[in-house]
């Protein structure tokens, strides 16, 4: 009898609480992401369960993340920000924060603690690279190669990109200096912890471009993440760099004769920001969603649909099997110890400073 009463009482309380919060929160939410498989994984892991808990909410996806910074700036200038939560890479989050376009986040009050009680700030750790950034996944830019075009000795070193004798044929690299210049210096004999010191000097930049000169006429430059998978699938290139999740889908879902070269993969982060200056009801909804969508279980769930590593330390042990293929996802994560033997960490501060300068030189070099 008392048990029923307690249950009834708690139910009533929950309803009341739910009702009270629902009144203050906007029921419309616009989420911004990258489209494609990545957005789908977010939809399945975060939004679907959230909407089941909150059937009154209607949510819309906008696949504009690749131009989120420019659009947010334009919206801000027009005084009409229509987005509620926006998925961006860490370097964009830093710029949005610098420009005052993203809201500062307090991880301990706005994000859920881990199930064992570890605070969110500690659980995310070093990955909180900006005051405005809520990390979701760790992804890496790495190299895939055609197993049938590389002969008996498949490449196992990042510098095999620059080895035209052992691996003749075209290779695809991203049409921007970030990652490309670092790899060039690494393969020109610069020690890993000195790469950014060297790249900060104009001699170092010349040196990286001179190294790239040796393969320039064999490179197809890509600008969209889907380019390299297509080029690999068509046999246009023997090897090429792209995001590890794209390669996963080429290898495991499309069963192409492609394998991954994890050496010197460059780690990067992707996560949410909340635009600055949202009205209170929409902000309340965005915060409520973020609190739910970045908890330990949700981040682990996303790895069921795409091979990116969850950004929380506490999520890693919960990563299970792929939802459709049924394969263990652990070994496909960029953070898996077997894959992460030699990794490279993107230096956000460096690129915030040198991006304009090096990009001008890189593009001038490309156009020649």
């Amino acid at each position, binding site marked *: 009898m008392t048990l029923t009463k307690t249950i009834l009482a708690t139910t009533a309380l929950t309803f009341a609480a739910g009702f009270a919060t629902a009144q203050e929160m906007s029921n419309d939410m616009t989420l911004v992401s990258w489209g494609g498989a990545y957005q789908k994984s977010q939809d399945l892991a975060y939004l679907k369960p959230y909407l089941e808990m909150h059937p009154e909410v209607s949510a819309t996806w906008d696949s504009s993340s690749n131009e989120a910074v420019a659009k947010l700036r334009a919206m801000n200038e027009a005084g009409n920000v229509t987005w509620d939560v926006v998925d961006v890479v860490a370097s964009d989050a830093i710029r949005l924060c610098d420009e005052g376009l993203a809201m500062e986040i307090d991880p301990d009050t706005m994000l859920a603690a881990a199930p064992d009680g570890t605070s969110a700030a500690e659980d995310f750790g070093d990955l909180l690279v900006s005051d405005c950034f809520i990390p979701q996944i760790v992804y890496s830019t790495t190299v895939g190669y055609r197993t049938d075009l590389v002969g008996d000795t498949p490449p196992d070193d990042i510098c095999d990109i620059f080895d035209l004798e052992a691996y003749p044929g075209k290779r695809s690299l991203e049409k921007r200096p970030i990652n490309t210049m670092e790899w060039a210096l690494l393969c020109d004999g610069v020690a890993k912890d000195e790469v950014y010191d060297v790249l900060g000097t104009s001699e170092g930049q010349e040196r990286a471009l001179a190294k790239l000169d040796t393969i320039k006429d064999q490179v197809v430059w890509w600008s969209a993440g889907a380019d390299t998978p297509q080029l690999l699938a068509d046999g246009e290139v023997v090897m090429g760099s792209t995001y590890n999740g794209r390669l996963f889908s080429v290898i495991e879902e499309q069963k192409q004769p492609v394998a991954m070269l994890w050496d010197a993969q460059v780690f990067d982060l992707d996560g949410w920001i909340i635009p600055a200056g949202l009205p209170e009801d929409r902000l309340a909804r965005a915060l409520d969603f973020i609190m739910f969508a970045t908890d330990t279980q949700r981040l682990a769930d996303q790895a069921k649909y795409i091979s990116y590593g969850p950004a929380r330390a506490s999520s890693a042990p919960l990563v299970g099997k792929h939802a459709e293929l049924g394969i263990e996802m652990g070994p496909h994560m960029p953070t898996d110890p077997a894959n992460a033997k030699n990794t490279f960490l993107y230096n956000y501060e460096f690129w*915030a400073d040198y991006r304009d300068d090096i990009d001008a030189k890189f593009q001038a070099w490309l*156009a020649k």
Partner: protein
Amino acid sequence: MSDQTTSGPVLAADGTPLKRSLARALRMQKLRALALIAPLLLFVLITFIAPIADMLFRSVENQIVQDTLPQTVEALADWDPSASEVPDEEVFRALAADLKVAVKAKTHTRLGTRLNYEMTGASSLFRKSGRRVKKMDPEGDASLKEAFIGIDKKWGEPEIWNTILTYSPKYTNGYFLNAVDMQKGPDGPEARPENQQIYMILFGRTLFMSLVITGSCILLGYPVAWILANLPTRTANLLMILVLLPFWTSLLVRTSAWKVMLQQQGVINDVLVWLGLVGDDARLVMINNQFGTIVAMTHILLPFMILPMYSVMQTIQPTYLRAAKSLGATNWTAFWRVYFPQSVPGIGAGSILVFILSIGYYITPEIVGGNTGTFISNRIAYHISSSLNWGLAAALGAILLAVVLLLYYAYDKIVGIDNVKLGG
């Protein structure tokens, strides 16, 4: 009585002079016409002209330095940049006071981004100083100069001060100089280092490739338009569908289709290898270069050339050709001396359309252009959406607009804009 009326002005029925009455009637008509087009005019002004003007204005606007660091800019006025010494304590005090205000409004990082376009490292310099400036006391006795140099030794070098001073006026020609591969130096504008020069190459390439694309559109489009204009209407309408069908297909689909056709493992190379014309190890490189861009854009823009040509050719009487031939002209002479001059207005209209469209083209060169086939518009897009250097993007856009207007003017002088017909 009759003498008086003949010497005075002609009067309308109501007694007012006819001239004035006519003018009034005309004015009424003009006002009515204006009222009719007023909604469109307002719409165009608000949604088209005003945003373009606003965007172009950004190419010279530079208020951020003065707005964020008002006291510093004022204190710096007495500093002599040629002495290559760091300013004195007074300037650092002004800087601390300005930064304190800026940190509260979170505008210091924005200024850092702006100055980083001119001086590498300004972005982190301002971010770092913003975090530490809160503890400083601009009224206190301690040396703020040392405190700032303690935060970052860049404050102790003249470069950052030069940059602030150079970009302190409210308006700057810095973006325009950058857009033509120059920069503001200590003694006025100077050329950028050679390894950073890119925009003049891109402007030249954009113009050159747009001309080539327009030329190939004329060569390919003229015979098609001629056949369409000279076939019976039924067949012509049927064939017209073939011209229009690609026109209605998504741009992205058509560009991607060219990728499939032209790539080294693509359809054309496969056929050539199969025919034995090309060795399997020597497949042709036809994409991710200028050639790929020209082919794909010619295909995409071809309808813009064919349609005006067709509508002009339709109006050319076939009897003229017959008359020429009956007077003894050969086929070639009849075409060249009689038919072709009458079809020139169609070529003119098509060329202007295709040329102006291709000069601002962005998607196709981005996808199939590789590194030698990209246009200036790709850099404009980069500065709008990635580097956020809208000032530079606006300057590049303004130059492009000026070039197009200049070419249009030249075209009007040489060919005459009256000679352009879209039909009829």
